[in-house]
């Protein structure tokens, strides 16, 4: 549920972000296939309690900003056979995101 957060969102619409590739212990909501990959913030979904803490009956506060991040399928999968316009979007918590490295 959308909840209070003491911190303003770290990212803005259009920001390029990279999903961390850490291997957490226990519950997490960042699928393996997206870790280490770079996408674009398309929606700021609001602030939610951290599910990695809620799963163990912790309050999960301060709430984390949740972002909808868009990935290009052709970049994500080496053998993707669909057109370049195809996208995959995931909702990712702020503590899994960092600014994308500038090449």
């Amino acid at each position, binding site marked *: *549920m*959308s909840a209070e957060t003491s911190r303003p969102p770290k990212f803005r619409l259009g920001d390029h972000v990279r999903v961390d590739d850490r291997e957490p212990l226990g519950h997490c*909501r*960042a*699928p393996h*296939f997206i870790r280490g990959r770079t996408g674009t913030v398309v929606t700021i*979904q*609001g602030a*939610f309690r951290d*599910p990695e803490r809620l799963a163990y009956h912790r309050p999960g506060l301060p709430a984390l900003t*949740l972002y909808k991040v868009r990935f290009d*399928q052709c970049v994500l*999968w080496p053998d*993707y*056979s*669909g*057109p370049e*316009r*195809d*996208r*995959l*979007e*995931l*909702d*990712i*918590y702020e503590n899994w995101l960092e600014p994308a490295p500038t090449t």
Partner: protein
Amino acid sequence: MHDHHDHDHDHPFQPDHDAGPATPYEVLELALRELLIEKGILTNAEIAGHIDKMATRNAALGAKVVARAWLDPAFKRHLVDDTRAALMSMDIDIGDLAEYRVVENTPDVHNVIVCTLCSCYPKLLLGYPPSWYKSVTYRSRTVREPRAVLKEFGVDVPDSTEVRVHDSTADLRYIVLPMRPSGTEGWSEEQLATTVSRDSMIGTALPKPA
């Protein structure tokens, strides 16, 4: 051919799937349920009634919402921009377990929903998810090769239309607002709702043609 009446060979025995000892979670559930009933917090009838209510829920409510969106452009905008509030305006309270988000199909974008991590699903609008939605096959293939999966469902999306896959990785449940089928001019909300299948709100089908 020998006489089978004196059996001296065994037939393979297939036990009933629920004939074994209870699992630890089944024991825990039973103990908790009995305790809640004993303490007067819940009654057996309330529990059974709620199970029945959930089991009989189907996609009719979702279809009604889609039909209304087709008829009312302002409601459609509201539904996409603030799904919770728009549903509330139809007296549909989604409660506090999750947020709902409606994504709109257009000639440029075809949306399809999946939950790779588990089986998150907008049950309040669509009822229980079908087995295929919860299968490892659907959950792993849809993010990877959505067009092939859609084709197997009978949906052929042209390359000029983006296929946009939404993986419900957080507490947001997605519903697809399909495009209104042609030939439905002048139809009422009730008639329009009959074209909206559950699968068209997941993205694995198109609404039934008029």
